[in-house]
């Protein structure tokens, strides 16, 4: 097995902490089952990649990245951008609903 670096330990701890938050949110019914499955899949993948990074070496040549670290960084950035877009859309939808509701309530006060 390859050497285990302190940065990997930090990464593993961060991922485990996020897994805990995900399970806790699921228990509090803040996350649905599909949210739980998606997040567990993403975080387990990252945990695997952090601990057994040498297995990712097979992707370096085909994807033409310099190192496994770069691969993880690009993947994390891509996932973050997708999440940002999804969150932005959800927020816009919620804002629109709040606007409609508040104005409807206000105008109903005037007969």
């Amino acid at each position, binding site marked *: 097995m390859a050497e285990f670096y302190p940065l990997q330990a930090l990464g593993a701890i961060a991922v485990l902490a996020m897994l805990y938050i995900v399970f806790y949110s699921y228990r509090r019914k803040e996350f649905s089952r599909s949210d739980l499955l998606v997040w567990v899949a993403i975080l387990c993948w990252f945990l695997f990649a952090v601990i057994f990074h040498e297995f990712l070496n097979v992707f370096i040549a085909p994807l033409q990245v310099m190192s496994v670290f770069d691969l993880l960084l690009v993947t994390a950035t891509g996932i973050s951008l997708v999440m940002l877009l999804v969150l932005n859309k959800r927020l816009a939808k919620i804002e629109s609903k*709040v*606007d409609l509701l*508040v*104005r409807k*309530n*206000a*105008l109903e*006060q*005037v007969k």
Partner: protein
Amino acid sequence: MESECVKIIGVIPAYNEEKRIATVVAEVRKYCSEVIVVNDGSADSTADVAREAGALVVSHSVNMGLGFSLRTGAETALKRGAEIIVTIDGDGQHDASEIPRVVAELENGQFEVVIGGRPNNAEMPFYKQLGNQFIYWSERALFGSLVVDTQSGFRAFRASVWPRLVWRSRGYSVSSEIVKNIATHKLKFVEIPVKTIYHDDYKGTRIMDGVKIVAQMVRWKVKDLGGNPNG
């Protein structure tokens, strides 16, 4: 004193203005058929005080912002048959006795929108003068607008121009959006100087609000270039 046969409704957006709203409503009532106060989720007794002063109060359950409140007020005024809508700030910054002069410009049929411009004088805080100048030049460069006091909340417009003037802004950028819509839809407007009173506890736009307003103007311009002038 109100113009004969023309229903003039005053719209006052208010957020935590229990100290001044009664005075503002009492003054505006002298010159308008009705006064609508939009209580924008105030935590104090703005709504009760305004109601006691004789205003029709419309309340938002949560604070939604100046632009949202103005639109609620304007739509309420239209629902009540307004022919001319006058908007005035709820913090007592504007002198309501200027309303007849402002409205007179609409009644002669030459103009569709009147803006009560606040002159740059020693009483206006310096950072406001600077900010107003910056926003004025930005608005002029982006939309060709000739309105000098783009941030004035004292304005009047004919109900007939509502479809072309209507705004989407929720916050302080509403004033800039109104000015933009005047320029975009080539509405006939005039800007006349009005008296302004600055209190020590001035609440209006701050520097960061000014930055956000200019950023929003750039976004509108990009949308205009993309062929969607209504945002």
